[in-house]
């Protein structure tokens, strides 16, 4: 967005005043439409039954904290990354390890599966995002085929392929997000607007167009237009770092998990927060959130080792899952919604259903 020449009457003082006026106006416009709460609208909805969700598989093999994981579109393979620099591809049905790569850095905070299932991307303290094509030959040295794609000036916090294997979206401790061409490593678009580390991102479901949401240490969640690089909406109601953001399956809303111990739901068309998922007894940060297929359930992994399951419409907690022996750091629902996987600082991943 080019910065036009300053108008003769624009000084720092007049701009500051206009900025305050606009911020107040924004709050007023949002408040005008706040005619009801989501849980009030959902009063007539039938309550969910008792949930019996258990650990169905435990994936053991990482030598240190699991920091990130992602599902393959085939609904059974999983890639996970760890503090010790290892990236492992698992078959979640059998719990077998299919591939393992050792990264040249520790704290591999981000990993993602390519839509084709033929490659994985990862990165962390090396400030880069690298793509490894997965070979059918188990003996092949994957590290030899590594392709460096993204370069940031601080740690890589999250990465995601777009609709194809050709482009990757990244977020970084340097306060920016960026879109890269995998083949050439070229920077296609950069996204500036956060005033501190960006910790997470999520792409809108493909039907809803080219946008993505990011969350950061500045307590803001920003929605971006991928083509223009413009920030189209911004939400600042959390009281601490936003560790995780995830779109609602319809694309009209997104959830966030934060160090302020709450998860929140923001509706994009109402342009405001519409629900808070919290309890007085929950005092530890939420590190990772994801929706079930219909959007009715929100799963949150927390730093107190538990997973809380929330009724998105009614705002109540329907279940609390115990099992991990340290912080839950990452959580994703499988592509067909039959299970979800959680990764933890206790070195394991668990599949729940």
């Amino acid at each position, binding site marked *: *967005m080019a*910065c036009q020449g*300053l108008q003769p009457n*624009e*000084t*720092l003082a007049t*701009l500051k005043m*206009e*900025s305050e006026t*606009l*911020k107040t*106006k*924004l709050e007023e*416009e949002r408040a005008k*439409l*706040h005619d*009801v*709460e*989501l849980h009030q*609208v*959902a009063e007539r909805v039938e309550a*969910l*039954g008792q949930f*019996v*969700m258990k650990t169905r*598989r435990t994936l053991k093999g990482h030598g240190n904290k699991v920091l990130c994981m992602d599902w393959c579109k085939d*609904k*059974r393979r999983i890639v996970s990354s760890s503090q010790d620099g290892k990236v492992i591809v698992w078959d*979640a*049905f059998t719990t077998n390890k299919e591939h393992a790569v050792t990264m040249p850095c520790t704290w591999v905070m981000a990993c993602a599966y390519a839509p084709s299932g033929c490659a994985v991307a990862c990165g962390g303290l090396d400030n880069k995002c690298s793509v490894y094509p997965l070979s059918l030959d188990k003996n092949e040295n994957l590290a030899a085929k590594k392709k460096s794609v993204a370069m940031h000036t601080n740690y890589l916090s999250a990465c995601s392929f777009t609709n194809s294997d050709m482009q990757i979206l990244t977020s970084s401790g340097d306060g920016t997000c960026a879109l890269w061409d995998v083949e050439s490593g070229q920077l296609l678009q950069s996204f500036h*607007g956060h005033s501190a580390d960006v910790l997470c991102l999520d792409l809108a479901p493909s039907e809803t167009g080219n946008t993505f949401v990011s969350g950061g240490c500045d307590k803001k969640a920003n929605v971006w237009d991928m083509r223009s690089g*413009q920030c*189209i*909406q*911004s939400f600042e109601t959390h009281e601490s770092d936003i560790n995780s953001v995830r779109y*609602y*399956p*319809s694309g*009209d*809303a997104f959830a966030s998990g934060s160090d302020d111990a709450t998860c929140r739901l923001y*509706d994009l*068309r*109402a*342009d*405001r927060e*519409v629900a808070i998922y919290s309890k007085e007894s929950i005092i530890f940060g939420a590190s990772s959130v994801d929706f*079930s*297929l*219909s*959007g*009715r*359930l929100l799963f949150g992994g927390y730093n107190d080792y538990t997973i809380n399951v929330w009724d*998105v*419409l009614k705002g109540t907690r329907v279940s609390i899952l115990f099992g991990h022996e340290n912080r839950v750091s990452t959580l994703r629902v499988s592509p067909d*919604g*039959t*299970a*979800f996987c959680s990764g933890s600082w206790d070195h394991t991943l668990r*599949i729940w*259903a």
Partner: protein
Amino acid sequence: MSSSSNLITMRKIVQQLRFEAKINRVKVSQAAADLQQFCLENAQQDPLVTGMSSNPFKPPRVCSFL
């Protein structure tokens, strides 16, 4: 020099706010109703909500003669 960069930063902030102020918004009652409708329409296809037993991760139930 720093005052001119402050000015540029402030201008960007004001431009961004002007942009955000212009967007069309719907009432929460409407937005909430749509979110709810989506949930209910898709509930039956949501394995974690329906608790379907033919889940590849759950052990299959076995019938046995007593």
